């Protein structure tokens, strides 16, 4: 709404309110005045008629009263008058025919109402007076007043509107001229001026406007000059450069900018709106898809939060219709101007694509390599978990390919691999994948082989997998013509199934590898399923080996120490270190389950060193806590002894932990002593250092007495299986006794293992056993609890006797 209209509307509104208020007050006052007059007139009439009626009733002369009443009907406000005596008989009325009748009922009707009063003498009621007053004259008078008032009000409103419009026109006439001049300036007519005579505020605004236009022209000229200066350096750079004003209009750009976007817009004009530019890019966009359309994002897709970095720089790479990749980098200056730097990165993108392809594909065959295969297999497994789809992983190895390679040369070998990869690619479905592992090994995953209907592979699934594997093998059968040679080659395939043989890509590949091994072992040109090739133990072993390697890396082991008690003194004389595996899924795993595997896989070396290092460090802590003379017994695997660096490793640990040599006892099994030459030498070196040697599990192996004679054994440990029945079996008791006597005869100490009852302990003491360990005397505890055992508990003879019951 224009200022003129607002002024006119304001004046009109104020006048309208004023007129309405005056009209309302006048009418209200007029009505109240008329009402008061009517009431007063009615009261006077009632009193007058009352007095006249009273006199008439006293004198019983009604003629004059009747004449008087009849004349009253000339009053437009009075319609009917009825006067009755005390007996209810009409004595006078405006209708003479009513005289002598009984007083009628007097209902009010529209615009008429009755006023009734009793006529009383000085001390008695004489009769009654009823007058029917008419409101018609009052209403008529009010209506006339209202009509007059409305006419005046309408006239006033019309006049007010005219006056308001005139005032608005007068007040804004010069402002209107100023606005017209400003519009001309806005349209580019920089010569436009306004002449407003006078010295009031509007005239001053006019003069200021003219001055402002002059300054604006000068500034525009300066800006043009600056822009020309600015654009020249940008022409020298290879990137496109554009500057958008705060209101997002293109104010300058260089030649590269025009060149980059020439394919989508041959003529980019100065003054172009940024929104149009953004819309142009979106229109020609091939990829990647913008987060929102230009319209939805306020015509500024490059301003989306997704593309802003922390400095407010907006970067994006877009692929336009002609296969042209363009990098857009835009940011706003503190003055809200937008600076854009644009680069044609089509060549760079092509290079990146080549590198990415080479990183994920085999250079010879063009097949995906193991890395890409792993990613795709992981994706396929994720989908299969969601959909319940069954999936097969196949490990394929060419039979006797080495003969081709060695016999006909690598070039022929490579060409053969290329041909084989093509056949493999053709022999699988669109949803399957073939990749080259390297050499003559290929890996595949096959889909569409059924769903997970049961927890085990059913016949149907196996048949499907078998058919697919057979098809692949058969695709190899036709001879290959390579370099003039007709080459016949077969392959072996190991197949694992998801989810029966593993739920991860690694497990499935390992399982397929095992199956391949079995297929190879069973003959060439065959395929083999994991289920038929390996039993559960093999799989478990594979899994366990993997987990064990990880456990060694993450040190998922803990060490417990079981007290060894001198049965004569009752003193704690030593502890045996016992290892436990804190499996993240299965909890504590006993050493029986993993020590053998660790020995077979060679992990025992690193695990054994970790045990020795940890226990010696723990012993130092005990010494610092006051347990000076406690002996530490550590189990050593035969595989550790065979490692050439064992002696050096143990010396290093003992030196690092300042372990007293005479307090470290190495527990060996009879198996460790079977390689006599090297072992004898090693044990001599160890005992020479001051270490003591204990023969563990004595009685369960060969129990060769020659070991006791040939090796420097300090102590033998009677196996728990003998101790268990020592009190119940006469033979076991006799054997234990004989062993103790024999050891003592060779000046070798004896430790009984697995003592769990007082009877066992009693017999062992009776037999002269030197030391014992077992749950009766102390279960394995953490290292920090050994100090408490040494200080608080005592296995004095009396206590031992008490323990014996």
């Amino acid at each position: 709404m224009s200022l003129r209209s607002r002024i006119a509307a304001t004046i009109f509104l104020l006048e309208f309110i004023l007129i309405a208020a005056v009209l309302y007050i006048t009418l209200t006052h007029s009505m109240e005045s008329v009402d008061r007059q009517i009431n007063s007139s009615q009261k006077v009439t009632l009193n007058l008629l009352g007095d006249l009626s009273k006199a008439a009733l006293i004198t019983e002369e009604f003629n004059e009263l009747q004449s008087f009443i009849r004349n009253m009907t000339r009053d437009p406000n009075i319609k009917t008058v009825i006067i009755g005596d005390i007996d209810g008989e009409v004595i006078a009325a405006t209708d003479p025919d009513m005289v002598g009748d009984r007083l009628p009922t007097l209902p009010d009707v529209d615009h008429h109402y009755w006023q009734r009063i009793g006529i009383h003498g000085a001390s008695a009621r004489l009769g009654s007076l009823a007058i029917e007053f008419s409101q018609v004259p009052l209403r008529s008078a009010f209506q006339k007043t209202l009509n007059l008032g409305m006419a005046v009000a309408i006239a006033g409103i019309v006049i007010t509107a005219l006056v308001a419009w005139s005032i608005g026109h007068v007040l804004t006439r010069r402002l209107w001229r100023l606005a017209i001049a400003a519009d001309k300036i806005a349209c580019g007519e920089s010569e436009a001026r306004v002449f407003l005579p006078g010295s009031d505020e509007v005239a001053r605004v006019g003069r200021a406007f003219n001055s402002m236009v002059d300054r604006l022209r000068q500034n525009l000229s300066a800006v043009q000059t600056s822009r020309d200066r600015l654009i020249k350096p940008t022409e020298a750079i290879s990137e496109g450069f554009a500057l958008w004003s705060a209101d997002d209009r293109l104010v300058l750009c260089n030649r590269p900018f025009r060149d980059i976007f020439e394919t989508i817009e041959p003529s980019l004009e100065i003054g172009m709106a940024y929104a149009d530019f953004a819309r142009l890019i979106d229109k020609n966009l091939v990829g990647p898809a913008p987060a929102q359309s230009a319209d939805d994002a306020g015509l500024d897709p490059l301003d989306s939060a997704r593309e802003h970095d922390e400095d407010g720089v907006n970067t994006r790479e877009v692929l336009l219709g002609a296969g042209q990749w363009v990098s857009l980098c835009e940011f706003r200056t503190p003055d809200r101007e937008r600076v854009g730097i644009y680069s044609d990165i089509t060549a760079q993108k092509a290079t990146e694509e080549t590198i990415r392809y080479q990183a994920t594909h085999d250079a010879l065959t063009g097949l995906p390599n193991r890395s890409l295969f792993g990613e795709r297999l992981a994706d396929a497994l994720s989908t299969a978990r969601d959909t319940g789809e069954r999936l097969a992983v196949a490990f394929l190895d060419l039979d006797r390919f080495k003969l081709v390679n060695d016999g006909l040369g690598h070039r022929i070998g490579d060409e053969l691999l290329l041909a084989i990869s093509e056949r493999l690619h053709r022999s699988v479905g669109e949803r399957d994948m073939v990749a080259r592992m390297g050499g003559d090994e290929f890996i595949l995953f096959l889909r569409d082989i059924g769903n997970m209907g049961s927890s085990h592979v059913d016949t149907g699934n196996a048949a499907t997998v078998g058919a697919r594997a057979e098809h692949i093998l058969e695709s190899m059968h036709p001879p290959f013509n390579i370099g003039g040679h007709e080459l016949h080659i077969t392959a072996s395939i190991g197949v694992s199934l998801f989810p029966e043989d593993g739920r991860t890509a690694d497990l499935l590949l390992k399982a397929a590898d095992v199956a391949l091994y079995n297929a190879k072992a069973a003959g060439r040109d065959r395929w083999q399923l994991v289920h038929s090739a390996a039993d559960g133990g093999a799989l478990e072993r594979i899994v366990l080996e993997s987990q064990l390697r990880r456990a060694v890396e993450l040190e998922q082991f803990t060490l417990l120490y079981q007290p060894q008690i001198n049965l004569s003194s009752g003193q704690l004389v030593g502890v045996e270190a016992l290892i436990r595996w804190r499996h993240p899924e299965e909890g504590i795993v006993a050493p029986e389950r993993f020590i053998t595997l660790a020995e077979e896989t060679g992990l025992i070396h690193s695990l054994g060193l970790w045990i020795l290092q940890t226990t010696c460090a723990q012993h130092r802590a005990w010494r610092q806590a006051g347990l000076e003379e406690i002996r530490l017994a550590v189990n050593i695997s035969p595989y550790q002894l065979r490692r050439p660096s064992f002696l050096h490793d143990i010396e290093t640990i003992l030196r690092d932990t300042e372990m007293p040599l005479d307090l470290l006892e190495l527990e060996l099994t009879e198996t460790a002593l079977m390689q006599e030459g090297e072992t004898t030498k090693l044990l001599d070196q160890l005992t020479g250092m001051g270490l003591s040697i204990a023969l563990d599990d004595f009685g369960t192996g060969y129990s060769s007495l020659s070991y006791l004679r040939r090796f420097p054994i300090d102590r033998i440990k009677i196996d728990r299986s003998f101790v268990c029945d020592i009190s119940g079996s006469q033979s076991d008791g006799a054997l234990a006794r004989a062993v103790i006597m024999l050891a003592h005869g060779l000046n070798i100490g004896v430790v009984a293992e697995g003592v769990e009852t007082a009877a066992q302990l009693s017999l062992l003491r009776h037999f002269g056993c030197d030391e014992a360990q077992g749950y009766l005397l102390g279960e394995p505890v953490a290292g920090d609890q050994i100090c408490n055992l040494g200080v608080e508990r005592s296995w004095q003879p009396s206590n031992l006797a008490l323990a014996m019951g």
Partner: protein
Amino acid sequence: MRKDASGRPKGAPRSFWLLAFLSALGIMLSPSVSAAEDEAQALPAAYRLGVFPYMPALTIDRLYSPVAEAFSLELNRLVKLRTKTTFENFAAALAEQSYDVIFVHPFLLVDAVEHHGYQPLARLEKPMRAVLAVREDSPASTLDDLVGGTIGLPPKMAAVSKLIKAAMIEAGLRPGLDVGVRHFRNKASCLEAVLSGAVAACGVPAFVLSQIETFDRHALRIAFEAPLISHFAFAVHQRVPNADRQKLQDLILSWSAADDDVVRNLRFDQDFVPVAPQDYVSVRAYQERLQTLALR
């Protein structure tokens, strides 16, 4: 008449008991009394008290409503106060015997008793005084001094008019011939006419001169005073049973002007006394003279 300590006339009880005794005897022995009782049985539910309109009707209502109310209480029956706008109308109603109890001036009382079946109950104790008032500077001091002039009087049927006229006749003057007579509707206009010189004198009750407030009373003086006659009186129609008549009379006579609001409201400043047979003899004589004059 002597009064007892309460102001009640001492003679009243004796006459009351005598009348009561005779009434009771008559009721028991006389068949005519029984007929009168039958007549009383036919009486309307309310008695009508007619007051001579010597003042405007509303004033009559204000002054005599307490009287009617007192009668109602005494008789245990409604007593309606009634009057007329003019003396003539009242006389006509009286002639029709439309009132059961009346309060009238002496001339109407005589007429009502002799011709319309009313019996007097009680009269004002003091006699009525009528005077001719002249201007202070008037030379007139007797009736003869007024011969040839015109005097103002109240309406024709007013007691004062009749009494002055009767006095003029007694003095040998002929009202309307020797002395011109002009009747005014009220006393104030009559006295105003004297002061303005329209009439030579004005006949009014004597007490009026002491109550004039609208103009200077000292500008007037009394030139002639008419003979005294008995004053206004209550009368009862003979159809009213004796018992009620007696109750009414006893009540009226019991009023004391000194301390009874009912009679004090009437502004006569005097008590009521029983009517004796000779009380209105002179009034009847004046009435006869006036009738003789009228016949001539």
